[in-house]
């Protein structure tokens, strides 16, 4: 209860991400929602092509209450850099620049821009919501898809069973840049994730959060199981291989 009481002070009652069209039970939308509640309304949000942008602003249903813009798929971190640069040039005060990109938009197509932005020591918060595949386009394998996982481009058959490569260690890649702050998190541990967003918020410099955000649609789990499902353990991957729709994670 003390924890909850503390959170009541830290979190605004505002819901800057409301009315979106994400699937019921979407882990990614929870990651975005909680982070924006921490960061507040003086925030510029960048989202690349992907689930969160696709569900977040389809004119005229615009579900972000704070400033938000969609970037090209590869350009999240570079668009964020441009916003940060303009904010400096225009002498804005008391604001945050945050980006929410998926695992593909971070570790694959967006990796170059992210690397450049960290290298330039941009003042922003980059949050990778990791659902372990290209979910928006139909559950295709990404660089963060775990070994053996079934996706629509790494299906299970007699010649190949699931993804043949290991999950890229994106956290270590980012850390190797000497970034100011990087953390891993999961939407299942909301208090911990919120604490890390808060730390990123007060970090002067570049922050990176890698948050596991299960996708019921892509993972083949019930919409209610998002916070119960786990990801990184190899045992869980075995369960998912060839799992029927009725299989439940415990």
């Amino acid at each position, binding site marked *: 209860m003390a924890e909850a009481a503390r959170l009541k002070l830290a979190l605004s009652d505002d819901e800057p991400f409301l009315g979106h069209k994400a699937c019921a039970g979407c882990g990614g939308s929870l990651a975005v929602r909680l982070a924006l509640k921490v960061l507040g*309304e*003086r925030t*510029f949000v*960048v989202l690349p092509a992907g689930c969160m*942008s*696709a569900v977040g*602003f*389809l*004119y*005229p249903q*615009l579900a*972000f*209450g*704070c*400033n*938000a*813009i*969609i*970037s*090209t798929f*590869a*350009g999240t*971190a*570079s*668009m*964020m*850099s*441009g*916003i*940060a*640069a*303009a*904010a*400096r*040039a*225009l002498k*804005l005060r008391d*604001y945050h620049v945050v980006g929410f990109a998926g695992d593909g938009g971070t570790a694959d197509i967006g990796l*170059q*821009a992210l*690397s*450049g932005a960290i*290298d*330039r020591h941009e003042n922003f918060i980059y949050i990778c919501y990791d659902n372990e595949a290209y979910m928006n386009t139909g559950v295709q394998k990404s660089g963060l898809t775990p070994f053996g996982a079934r996706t629509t481009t790494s299906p299970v058959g007699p010649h190949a069973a699931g993804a043949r490569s290991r999950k890229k260690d994106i956290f270590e890649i980012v850390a190797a840049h000497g970034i100011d702050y990087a953390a891993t998190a999961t939407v299942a541990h909301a208090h911990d994730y919120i604490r890390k967003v808060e730390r990123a918020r007060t970090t002067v410099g570049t922050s990176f959060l890698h948050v596991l955000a299960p996708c019921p649609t892509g993972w083949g789990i019930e919409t209610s199981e998002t916070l119960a499902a786990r990801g990184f353990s190899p045992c869980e991957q075995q369960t998912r291989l060839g799992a029927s729709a009725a299989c439940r994670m415990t």
Partner: protein
Amino acid sequence: MSVEATARQPQPLFMSGNEAVAWGARLARPHVIAAYPITPQTVVIERLAEWVAEGKLDTEFLHVESEHSALSACMGASALGARTFTATSSQGLLYMAECLQYASGGRFPIVMMNANRALALPWNIYGDQQDSLAVLSSGWIQIYIEDAQEALDMTIQGFAIAEHAEVLTPVMLNLDGFVLTHTYEPVDVPAQADVDAFLPPFRTPSKMSLEAPTSMGFTAGPAHYTEFKVQQHRAILRAERVASEVDQEFGRRFGRSYGGAVVPYRCEGADVVLVTLGSVAGIVRETVDKLRARGVAAGMLKLRLMRPFPEREIVQALSTARFVGVLEKDVSFGYRGAVFSEVSSALAGSAARPALLNFVAGLGGRDISRNDVEQMFVELQSATVRPLGEQVRFVGVNSNG
């Protein structure tokens, strides 16, 4: 080249085309510059970086890690209402290709210099116009520049056109790689105060702000997308009139103007006209004079604006010509040069039915000589109305049969 304060220069400075663009960008006071080096553009961003280091240019200079990121960063900055500038060439222009459509559709008034350069493969760093003419549909205003003075002036004018409330469309300034980017001329550098008076700070309601949160760059489905695109199309069409007004105002203040979308040279009553764009216009103009002296009713039509395409002015300038050639440094593989196709299309609607020839020259930086140009006029004068399937004339290429 080193310069002290930007008080009015009493004499012209000797500078390259690239340096002239850098000067224009400096005087326009962009808030953010994000650019990636590529030959033959590099000198532009090097000069800008020098001035930043010397404290002569107050801007946020981002060392982006690719051209795609350069334009993405410019769009992010523009989305906050900042004035932005970038520069690229050939491979870089195509690397940022998705961002070109993104920027024009997003109505971000970015100004970008493009050093026209050949496209791989094979690799070639020299100048031709394949790069920009391959992206005519990108939604950018495209201006083709003949000399270094125009390069400086049009960089300043470019911001005025792009940021105009009726336009809000990005501008691409094209300079022939090496032949213009790296050659030197005396250039008059306007005083900063005069440029400030001509080009006020960028103001737009279309931006993200902390006072009025905004959604930008959003999705629009089948029910709405078309209307956004029609609006975009109408805005770039308005740019022709706006560009002319800006040019006239520039002329009033600085004593130099460039005549609008097309510049006819001795086209009145001309019988044979060569249409062209960019710096090669210099030797075409000389050839026209030489032919006129011999009694040939020759003319040149220089196109400054390829987008929006000045169809009416082209038809008007070519109204008396029986023979029209288009000289360009590109080819749309499988058909003809892009400029030729569009000029032909414009003439299809006019009463005049000239014989038309498409000369493709200068690919990969191959020199175009005065003799080459004179030869084009000779061929034109014996041209007949084209039969279908007439091939492009690649200048200076030996063929069998």
